[in-house]
């Protein structure tokens, strides 16, 4: 046996410490964990289920599981007549119901080669914007509540009533108006509605100003949303994001301005808001500005409302000639389109619905990779989806 030399001993000591370090490493290595959010969770706006695999506080991968609100719209639309379909599609994006009807009616009008009279188009556009305001105000309160501020959601519910009252006064339905007809609208506006609506718009502008200070100016809100969930413009476009989500990434694209549907947006003076950052804060900011812009659009539309009939000449029993048509509009959540195939029958042969939330949510696995657990909530809230719009 030879004596152990000094350098050899040193080497062994080194190996021993290495081994000890390795043991230590094994001990503090965080275990993987699967976190299930939903299917009923306030942060998922309904019934989205999210399965996230975590490593400590970080998300390794997250997968949205949908279908808890699948009601089979595309199949049901095949057994409903055209006027009945509008009743049904009100309920896709339930916060902005009127906005859901418009693209379908426009597609059907394309097939029938009728066009709504100007007055109907203007009122349609005004109601469209009102439903946008009713929809997005709730988002403005809701995202704040998910970041821990409870008051904004009460204020959103309170002030949203002003808009819902106006929608109800004009259409008879607080939530699901079912007011659009092929070739025009069901009724004209009631007396005094225009003045009342202008007052309501005044109140909504106050609401927006208040939120700009209360929420956007809040330090905690900024700390929790700035730089969280950044969507670069190319990635957003590749995933098919639309609406405020893509405008918050600096893409200047809005179907109200860039689309070719028969609505009155080209008659009024308004602006498309974009934000270069692409983070959660930017998405909130863009939506807030859009709400304010929508109140201005409504004001201008009501000022310049043309007179005339509100219904074009259409047969009582609607039979749509054979053919196919696609119409898309900029709904509160993003691009919503209907591809209607008709075989000349009372019912559509096939209706394909392109809804905004379905594409908006598809980016979550990419976006949630590597974020921390509290940021999941921020990102989900700021992407703003509605379950009915995802599952249909």
């Amino acid at each position, binding site marked *: 046996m030879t004596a152990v030399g000094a350098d050899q001993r040193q080497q062994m000591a080194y190996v021993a410490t290495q081994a000890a370090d390795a043991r230590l490493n094994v001990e503090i290595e965080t275990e993987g964990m699967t976190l299930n959010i939903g*299917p*009923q969770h306030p942060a998922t706006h*309904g*019934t989205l289920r999210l399965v996230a695999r975590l490593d400590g506080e970080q998300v390794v991968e997250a997968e949205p599981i949908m*279908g*808890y*609100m*699948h*009601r*089979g719209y595309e*199949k*049901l639309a095949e*057994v409903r007549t055209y006027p009945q379909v509008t*009743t*049904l599609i009100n*309920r896709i994006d*339930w*916060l902005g119901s009127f906005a859901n009807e418009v693209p379908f009616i426009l597609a059907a009008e394309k097939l029938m080669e009728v066009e709504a009279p100007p007055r109907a188009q203007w009122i349609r556009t005004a109601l469209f914007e009102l439903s946008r305001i009713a929809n997005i105000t*709730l988002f403005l309160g809701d995202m704040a509540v998910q970041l821990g501020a409870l008051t904004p*959601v*009460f204020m959103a*519910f*309170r002030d*949203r*009533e002003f808009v819902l009252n106006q929608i109800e006064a004009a259409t008879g339905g*607080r*939530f*699901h108006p079912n007011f659009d007809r092929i070739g025009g609208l069901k009724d004209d506006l009631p007396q005094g509605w225009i003045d009342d609506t202008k007052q309501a718009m005044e109140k909504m502008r106050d609401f927006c100003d208040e939120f700009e200070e209360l929420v956007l100016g809040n330090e905690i809100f900024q700390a929790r949303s700035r730089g969280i969930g950044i969507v670069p413009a190319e990635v957003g476009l590749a995933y098919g994001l639309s609406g405020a989500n893509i405008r918050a990434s600096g893409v200047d694209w809005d179907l109200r301005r860039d689309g070719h549907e028969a609505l009155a947006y080209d008659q009024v003076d308004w602006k498309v808001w974009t934000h270069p950052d692409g983070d959660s804060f930017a998405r909130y900011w863009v939506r807030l500005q859009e709400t304010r812009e929508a109140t201005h659009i409504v004001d201008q539309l009501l000022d310049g409302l043309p007179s005339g009939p509100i219904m074009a000449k259409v047969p009582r029993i609607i039979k749509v000639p054979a053919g196919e048509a696609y119409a898309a509009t900029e709904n509160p959540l993003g691009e919503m389109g209907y591809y209607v195939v008709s075989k000349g029958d009372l019912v559509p042969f096939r209706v394909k619905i392109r809804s905004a939330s379905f594409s908006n949510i598809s980016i979550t696995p990419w976006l949630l990779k590597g974020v921390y657990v509290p940021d999941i909530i921020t990102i989900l809230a700021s992407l703003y989806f509605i*379950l*009915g719009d995802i599952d249909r």
Partner: protein
Amino acid sequence: MGLVESGKMPAPLTKLLNIGRKYSLWMYQWGLACCAIEMGAVIGSPRYDVMRLGVIPFPASPRQADLVVISGTVTDKMVPSILRLYQQMPDPKYVISMGSCANCGGPYWDSYSVTKGVDQIIPVDVYVPGCPPRPEALLEGIVLLQERIMNEDPAARWRGDPIVVD
């Protein structure tokens, strides 16, 4: 066996107990679709304000709730969760079904994926009709439920149904 379950409670005490139960309903909200927003208006909007009826929203878990409001479209995929929710609630428990969808399927009466009424899986105490019901309608449903609680014999409710675990 406690005094309540045995059914030997004196009548004035029963009345007192019922008043107490009636005005401290912890309401668990199971919002599924459009109706959930109207339920949200009932809870969150100062214009409707359910708390003045003695109903307390947002319990932390169904295990602390007396009342569950099923509002919205119940799909077949959702049924197991609702069943589990109901089984988790302690007796006595009440169910309000809000909206045509939860009552009977509503506009999706011929859909392949929608359950035609939540009463196919759990017992319902009050049906609130409408699509969606106005917030006032849900408030009335709650008032009706409170009337029912006032007039019922607590012993029957306390024993509860045996929980079947499948």
